[in-house]
Every structure is written in structure tokens, then in C-alpha cells.
């Protein structure tokens, strides 16, 4: 019935008419074979054909970024942004390293709040937009810095979002970066396709997939793994967040989000993807995010901090091992 269209990889959809010219062709939507095709309008309306004019600029800008890491999860609210922030902070703890954090969640940017820079604005200079610096070596870019007020909704359809993502990659004066961590919105849609396509030439080091232990979330992560496979992105590993809760009163651990189907561990085994670690639920993580302070610096004694640092070490090792080759 409904074939999952792989337009991003194969330009001829499986449900297309026999002589489909391909969705990326100049003739898409205009060829004789397109008459009567259910998707003719869509093809015909996608006017810009051929390579995106932004690509060479992005390549230049990204040439000085050593590692690019995507933080993905199919489901929302599993802790992508929180994890991105901890990763950013942990990288930036080394004063020799330059780190950038880019938030491509256009409709629900949380990164500014989590880093405690929600009221900042972006300045533009002759060399481009300058990111907001939380520390000397930690720059951030998010659509949250461009809204007149935090209450404003960004009601944009795909093409506008893509335009902004292209700008984030080509117009932001990131400078020389050791790490660029990219926080994404939930799902597998415009934002994800755009980031991956824009960065194809300069190469993405890999993706970290964040999940919670329940099957509902794992289901979405499986889709995300499928997405990475289709797009040819390496999966660095899985992180299981909100894994168990230690009651601050009696110190007993209980499972709020019970791993009914074996959790990330089983998924890791099934798919052969490394499980980087499990981060327990700590109410202070959410609080730190609300106040915009680094959880790792505030509560270094929490078991969650240990888990985070352990995961980050593993990621560094995976990335480091690669650059040494």
C-alpha cells in the first residue's frame, strides 16, 4: 500500500510511474510520465534543482571543524538537549579545545535555556554571525537567540527551516573548532535531512542516539537507526537516559520508565550498536537545565555525573582513535 519513500537516497520512489525521471531531475513533475502520478505536484513545486548554492560556502566554513557530532533520538523529551549540553560542557572543560554547539531544533529551541544564555542576542560582523559564547571556548548558536520574545512560536514549514539551517552552517563565524555538537529536534524529517545533506561533503563523524528505557521510545530509536543507515551516517553509540530513579528520601532505586522489552541493552545487542552508558534520572539534572548551569560542575558526586563523564570519555576515545589513523 504505502511504500516508504526513500527519496533522500534513491531519487526514483518505489511507487513512481514507470518512466519517472527521478525526483531530483530537472524534469521532475514535468515529464510526460509524470501525468497522473500522485506526487506530480510535489515534484513540480520543488523548484531548486541541482546542487544547493550554499554548499561551497558550507564546505569552506566546515573545513576548519575537526569533529562533527549529531545528537539524535526519534522521540522527543528523552534528553537530547540535556545530553548535548553536558557533552558541550565536558569538551569545553579542556581549555585547549574549541567547542561549538548548534541547535537545529527550530520550533522548540531549548539549548539557550540549558546553557543559561536565554536572553542573549546574536551579533553579526563582517565575517558572519558570531555565536553566543558561554565560555571563551564554547560557542552556541540557536534560533532562540533570534526571536523577539521567548513566547513567540516559529511557525515555519520545511523550506524555511532548511534555509535557516544552511545559514547556521555557512554564515556563523564558528572559527576553528575541535568539536561541533549538533542538537536536533525529534523525528526524521526536514531538519535531519538538511543537516545531513549540507554536511555530506565535509563529513559527519557520527551520531549519538539518546533513548529512554521504554519500548515506545526504543521504537522511535529503531527508526532513527534505520534513518542513519539510509543516510550513511555512522552511529557512535546509544545512551539510555532516565534509566532508574534513586529516591532522595530512602535511596532506593526504582524504575519510572520500566524497560519492558529489555531497554537499550537489548536494542544494542540486536543491532550491534555500542551502548555507551546509562544515565540515571536525577531531579537535579532537570533543575540544572532550568537554571542554565552545568550539572557536571554543580553535582560532580551524583551517579549521573559519573555516567555522563564515562559516556563522554567513550565518545572522545571513539573520535580520537579515528583522527589518529
Amino acid at each position, binding site marked *: *500500500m*504505502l511504500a*516508504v*519513500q*526513500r*527519496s*533522500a537516497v534513491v531519487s526514483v520512489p518505489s511507487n513512481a510511474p514507470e518512466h519517472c525521471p527521478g525526483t531530483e531531475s530537472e524534469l521532475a513533475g514535468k515529464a510526460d510520465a509524470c501525468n497522473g502520478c*500522485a*506526487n506530480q*505536484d*510535489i515534484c513540480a*513545486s*520543488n523548484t531548486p534543482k541541482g546542487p544547493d548554492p550554499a554548499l561551497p560556502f558550507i564546505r569552506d566554513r566546515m573545513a576548519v571543524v575537526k569533529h562533527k557530532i549529531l545528537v539524535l533520538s*526519534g*522521540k*522527543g*523529551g*528523552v534528553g537530547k538537549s540535556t545530553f548535548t549540553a553536558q557533552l558541550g560542557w565536558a569538551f569545553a572543560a579542556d581549555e585547549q579545545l574549541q567547542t561549538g554547539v548548534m541547535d537545529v531544533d*527550530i*520550533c*522548540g529551541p*531549548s539549548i539557550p*535555556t540549558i546553557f543559561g544564555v536565554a536572553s542573549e542576542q546574536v551579533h553579526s560582523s563582517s565575517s558572519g554571525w558570531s555565536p553566543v559564547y558561554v565560555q571563551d571556548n564554547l560557542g552556541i548558536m540557536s534560533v532562540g537567540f533570534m526571536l523577539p520574545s*521567548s*513566547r513567540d*512560536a*516559529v*511557525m*515555519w*514549514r*520545511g*523550506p524555511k527551516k532548511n534555509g535557516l539551517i544552511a545559514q547556521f552552517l555557512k554564515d556563523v563565524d564558528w572559527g576553528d573548532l575541535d568539536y561541533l555538537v549538533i542538537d536536533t*529536534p*525529534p*523525528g*526524521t*524529517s*526536514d531538519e535531519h535531512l538538511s543537516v545531513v545533506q549540507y554536511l555530506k561533503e565535509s563529513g559527519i563523524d557520527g551520531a549519538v542516539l539518546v533513548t529512554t528505557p521504554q*519500548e*515506545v521510545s526504543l*521504537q*522511535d530509536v529503531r*527508526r532513527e537507526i*534505520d534513518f542513519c543507515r*539510509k543516510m550513511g551516517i555512522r552511529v557512535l553509540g546509544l545512551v539510555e537516559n532516565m534509566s532508574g530513579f534513586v*529516591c*532522595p*528520601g*530512602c535511596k532506593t532505586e*526504582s524504575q*519510572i*520508565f*520500566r524497560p*519492558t*522489552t529489555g531497554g537499550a541493552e537489548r536494542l544494542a545487542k540486536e543491532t550491534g550498536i555500542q551502548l555507551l552508558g546509562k544515565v540515571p*534520572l536525577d*531531579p537535579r539534572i*532537570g*533543575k540544572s537545565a*532550568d537554571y542554565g548551569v552545568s550539572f557536571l560542575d554543580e553535582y560532580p558526586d551524583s551517579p549521573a555525573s559519573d555516567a555522563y563523564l564515562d559516556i563522554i570519555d567513550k565518545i572522545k576515545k571513539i573520535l580520537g582513535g579515528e583522527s589518529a589513523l
Partner: protein
Amino acid sequence: MAVQETPVSRRLKSVKHIIIVCSGKGGVGKSSVSAQLALSLHASSPNARVGVLDVDLTGPSIPRMLGLDGHGVHQSSDGWVPVYADALGDGEPRLACMSVGFLLKKKGDSVVWRGPKKNAMIRQFLSDVRWGELDYLVVDTPPGTSDEHLSLIEHLAPVHSRLSAVIVTTPQAVALLDAMKCLSFTRAVALPVLGLIENMSGYVCPCCGDVSNVFSTGGGVEMAIREGVPFLGSMPIDTELVTLLDAAESTDLGAADGQHDEDSEVRSFGVLQRYQKTSSAKLLSAIVENLILTLPSVEHASVSSSA
């Protein structure tokens, strides 16, 4: 202004109320609230007919939550036949469900679509599904305020007078920020808001009974007061519910309480029964009673203001 007749308005002519469940942020419990709303509306009267439409195209969770994983959609001469969650119960089925999850060959398949494809799918969901007579259609949305939401509002414009929204949030500042964006969105498209539900508000330790505010607390009430939106209630984290909605397939937990008279294979029907036993069901049924009373007045107000 004469309302134009479209395939969507023709199809939805027999639907009395359309409730859109939204939230700016992901993972705050939209799908779980949608599923619970549907279950409670279904239980609110012996002949209430309820539909659930899942327009979260890249991350459909409704099939799993209602125990309908693995079902497929059938085509009939009168459009797609939705999957009925209570098909195996006695009496006429009256909880219809439609999601992109039913159309996937494998549940691990990803739907990698850009906006225009999503728009077309939503239009098809609204115009081609044979809902039949419905009292309530609960629409579960993806996070954000983007293609899916704009398409939904656009296609539902001819039936705008029957639309209303419920906003779900969790108590942290980060989630409230996004809920605020969602509220701005409903105002921009003149969608009447039935109210705000604060989800994941506190967790009761099963060991010592202490309430921990895992994601802080009280933020939802404050926002509702500040913005002049009705506050529908707060739902604490209910592990029983999490497990029920997550593992709707396994009946081992439900069997433990001795109520094992229903066929254990009738797993989706089991969800309906077992849901009524959770503590969340009582909270939500109070919310639903309230909603049923306010629905006509909210919708009426939107009619008169747009006239």
C-alpha cells in the same frame, strides 16, 4: 463567510468534536494523554464513539500505547478502515484508531519525509479514513509548531467551529517555554484552547512513599493563571500507567489481580479494562467530565467570534 466544501469537510461531517492534543516539547506525554483521553471519553458513556488520529508521522506511538502494534489498515470502497481498539469486545466497536504506524511494513522502518509529503499524508488521513459517526476525534500531534500542525489546521479550516485544543506540558522551565510557543501558535491560528494539563508532576517513591518532583512542580498552574487558560489538572508520574501503555501486549501484569476472565489474546481490549484500574484513570476521567461540559461552550464561542 460561506464555508467551502472539501473532501475533508465532507468526511468529517459526522464528527461532532475534534480535540487536538499538542505541546511544544517532545516527550511530555502528548501521546499518552491522547490515548488516555480517548480511553476516558470511550468510558464516559456506553455509546460514546471515539476516534484517535495520530499525525506524528515520523514517530507514531499511538499503536503501541493502545496495544495495536502490528495491525494493518484495510481499504474499502468507502476509504481506509481504521483499526478498532475494542474490536474484540462485545457490542459494536467504538474506539477507532488511525496512525502511520499501521502503514509501515516493519515497525523499525523510518519515515523520512519532508514537508510536502507529510502534508499529503495528513490530507489523506483526514479525507480518506472511514471514521463513520464519531462523537470525539482526538488528534495526537508531533512536537513543535511546523508542517504537521500547519497542514492540520489548514485542512481542518472548513470544520474550524468544531475544533479545540488541549496543551500538555511538564513542570520544568524548559518545557513550559515550548508550551508557551504552542499557546502562541493556537492564538495565531484562532484555535480555542480547552486547557492545560501538567503531566509528570511528581513521582511517588514505591518504597517510602515520598513525593519527588522529578521534573519540578507547579509550573503548569502558574502558566495557566498567567495566560488566562483553564488549568485542567496535574497528572503525577504513574509507573503502572507507563508500563501499561508501553507493554500493552503483555497481559502478565493484568492477570496478576485475578481479573483474568477476558481472553488473554484480546490484548488491546485488555488495555481498556486495565486502564480503568490505574490511578491516572480517575484523575483523567474528572478532567474528561469537565471537558465534555466545556466543549460546546468553547466551540460555540469560537463560532460566534468568527461570525
